[in-house]
């Protein structure tokens, strides 16, 4: 039968070619009812978001910290873990003579932050041009050049606000998606805390009906800040849970509804279809204002592929970069931003409940380059 396979492959090829050429592209989305394979894989699927909620169960409602300036507050953590990137670059650039070897080192430093080959080469090219034209001269000058270029890489003009306001008497809806183990559930909980801190009424939808602990995990988080969590049966249809959550949000006149989904590898067509369905079903009730892709900061170049596929299926509007407090640098988001135009909106900088910060390019770069900035 091994031989037959070759025939099949050939057929596949031909069929693909034939089908591919058949019709010229029209609408893109909308494949109904393909939520297969979810049930039989239930409970096995887990590579698990792992950032832990703290164990203490506070009976009194917690008051999350205000959002303003979180990134600045977390700067130390960022600068501490990423000193190699920012300071390394800076010390290289402010050498008396920047020769080819130094440029090579600069390139290496950027590469080790998962920035990717192309963005790295481009950045190095631009830095080189700048230095050649203007010269470096002083530390302050080097810092200014580096700061400008890094900020330019991060494209500060992108809209990074979370669009989760109540509009047309309907709550703003956010869908949180990502691969297994990236930290979706925790991120949903942390966003809820951010919103609560801003005096929004929030409803959580635990549409991760896949993983045993996910629903309880989310509920625990919700209870701590007095947020209602809508849950469904384990192994149930995630789209129906999401629908219920939005329905509940509308009835309660909530400001925002956050929907947690099960982790899925972007290569699983069936599961991606299921995700598309969740979004379509929710859209019957209210517009989905935000689709946040949760990316683990340790992810390498595959992050781009993930983002591309998720964007195709559910139109990702923003990225939440998690686990940035390890040694990882999350350089892949630069590539993702450039390629797909999807901005990083949130960064997760620790396991604490309020360690999720809005992403601000300037503050972020300043943190990378260490203190005493703003030349």
């Amino acid at each position: 039968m091994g031989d037959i396979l070759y025939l099949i492959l050939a057929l596949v090829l031909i069929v693909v070619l034939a089908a591919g050429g058949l019709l010229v592209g029209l609408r893109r989305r909308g494949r109904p009812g393909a939520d297969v394979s979810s049930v039989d894989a239930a409970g096995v699927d887990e590579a698990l978001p792992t950032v832990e909620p703290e164990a203490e169960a506070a009976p009194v409602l917690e008051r999350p910290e205000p959002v303003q300036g979180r990134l600045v507050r977390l700067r130390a953590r960022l600068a501490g873990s990423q000193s190699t990137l920012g300071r390394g670059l800076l010390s290289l650039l402010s050498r008396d003579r920047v020769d080819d070897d130094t440029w090579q080192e600069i390139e290496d430093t950027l590469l080790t932050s998962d920035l990717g080959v192309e963005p790295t080469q481009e950045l190095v090219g631009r830095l080189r041009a700048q230095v050649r034209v203007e010269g470096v001269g002083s530390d302050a000058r080097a810092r200014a050049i580096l700061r400008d270029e890094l900020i330019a890489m991060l494209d500060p003009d992108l809209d990074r606000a979370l669009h989760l306001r109540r509009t047309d008497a309907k709550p703003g809806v956010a869908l949180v998606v990502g691969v297994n183990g990236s930290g979706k559930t925790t991120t949903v909980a942390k966003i809820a805390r951010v919103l609560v801190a801003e005096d929004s009424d929030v409803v959580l939808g635990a549409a991760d009906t896949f993983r045993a602990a996910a629903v309880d995990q989310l509920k625990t988080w919700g209870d701590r800040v007095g947020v209602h969590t809508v849950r469904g049966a384990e192994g149930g249809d995630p789209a129906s849970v999401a629908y219920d959550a939005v329905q509940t949000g509308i009835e309660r006149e909530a400001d925002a509804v956050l929907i947690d989904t099960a982790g899925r590898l972007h290569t699983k067509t069936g599961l991606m279809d299921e995700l598309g369905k969740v979004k379509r079903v929710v859209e019957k009730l209210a517009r989905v204002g935000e689709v946040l892709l949760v990316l683990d900061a340790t992810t390498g170049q595959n992050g781009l592929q993930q983002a591309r596929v998720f964007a195709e299926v559910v139109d990702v509007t923003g990225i939440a970069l998690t686990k940035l407090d390890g040694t990882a640098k999350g350089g892949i988001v630069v590539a993702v931003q450039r390629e797909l135009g999807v901005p990083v909106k949130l960064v997760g900088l620790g396991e604490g409940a309020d360690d999720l910060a809005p992403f601000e390019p300037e503050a972020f770069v300043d943190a990378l380059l260490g203190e005493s900035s703003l030349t």
Partner: protein
Amino acid sequence: MFATLQDRLETTFKSLRGKGRLSESDIDATCREIRIALLEADVALPVVKQFIAAVKERAAGAEVSGALNPAQQVIKIVNEELISILGGETRRLRFASKPPTVILLAGLQGSGKTTLAAKLARWLQEQGHTPMLVAADLQRPNAVNQLQVVGEQAEVTVYAPEPGNGVGDSVAVARGGVEEARRTLHDVVVVDTAGRLGVDAEMMQQAADIRDAVSPDETLFVVDAMIGQDAVTTAHAFLDGVGFDGVVLTKLDGDARGGAALSVAHVTGRQVMFASSGEMLTDFDVFHPDRMASRILGMGDMLTLIERAEKTFDAEEAAKTAAKLQGKEGDFTLDDFLQQMQTMRKMGSLSKIFGMLPGMAEMRDQIESIDEKEIDRVGAIIQSMTPSERDDPKIIDGSRRARIARGSGVEVSEVNGLVDRFFEARKMMVAMAKGGGMPGMSGGMPGMPGGMPGMGKRAKARQAPKKGRTKRRSGNPAKRAQQEAAAKQAEQSTPPGAAFGFGGDSADAEEAADFELPKEMRDLMGK
């Protein structure tokens, strides 16, 4: 989708074709490309550097090979180096002379330890052992629960005296687990621990404490195939913190190139022992260094594609389809066409399937521009036809067309297009099924004349599986190159059957390396 190393090198060497020996500048240019390819595959930079140095040395001293062009020569070297780092032979688990054998799992958060524990246990059970799982991850909420659930699915005993969720002493649990296993005569104990960051000293200490308490025979480091440059730092942290004897690569079912495997193996000198590639408990196997090498180089992954096709396609159905194609031209109907399309759909996105075929670089843009949803639309059109129309599309006249178009919500012209294309495609398929000329597929088929133009040596190897061997392990690109060479040759009008003649001797089979689609297929694509 990034260009593969092979494509890159082919471009670099275009001007050099015919040159016998690699000059130093050639090697430098090549190394640059290899460097980029490896970095894009997430191989850590320090590893890339050392690797390149090694390749350079070998390439400079390499014998001039009459059979290989420079690009192939370099690729061959690169591939061999890769395989040697990844470990030529996969190491087997060491079992304790006095049971129970203790296996400790450690890794980052979210790398997939708990799931892996169950998979490993299941695998051990298949090998005739009686494993027991110990739930020593008391940190993550419901990790204990999860282990119990997956343990049940794997039908393995789970030792979980503590409910977890942040309370309890995992060291005591681990120790208790080993005692329990000794008492209940389980011969292998798999200890699942909490995920931890390499920089978290406290958690690393805990892992070390567990290690000291149970003195494991094997400590396995579980690492996510998607991890980037951080792999080196993490691997070092774990090696210093807990120490490990082997590596397990998880989430290989994604499309990450998995350069991390190379980084970790190179930096720590520990071998990758197992690979986990799916959500089912059975998606677990020993690691194949040769396949991983091809994957890292992005050289197309025919083996994976074949395996996936094997899983997706029903052999009987396939045989039936094959028979139809070899029969009268009208035997292959729109229904069959639809069925093929739908089955293929299950294999994943089209661009991914194409990505697995080697040497598709030329067509990459076209592939990218294929709209996957068009398949659904074609499906809709076919489903709007009556059974008799599907059996014989020739009867579709103007009014039938209008009806079909209305039924499937498309323009009449699209229905026309589909019918025309179907005839064209069918003609081609029949021609190929009968006479070969399609690279990659072919002969050896029962009743199919013409041997296997696309296969060369592999064709012979392929006869064996029929008699029971189910997995083909040859990921060796030298062989693949051969295959491609054969394909090319076949395309250049080698009469069917002749291809069987070569292939035994690897040197002369490796002459050419471009895999190209036959012209008619490219035309079809272009339309």
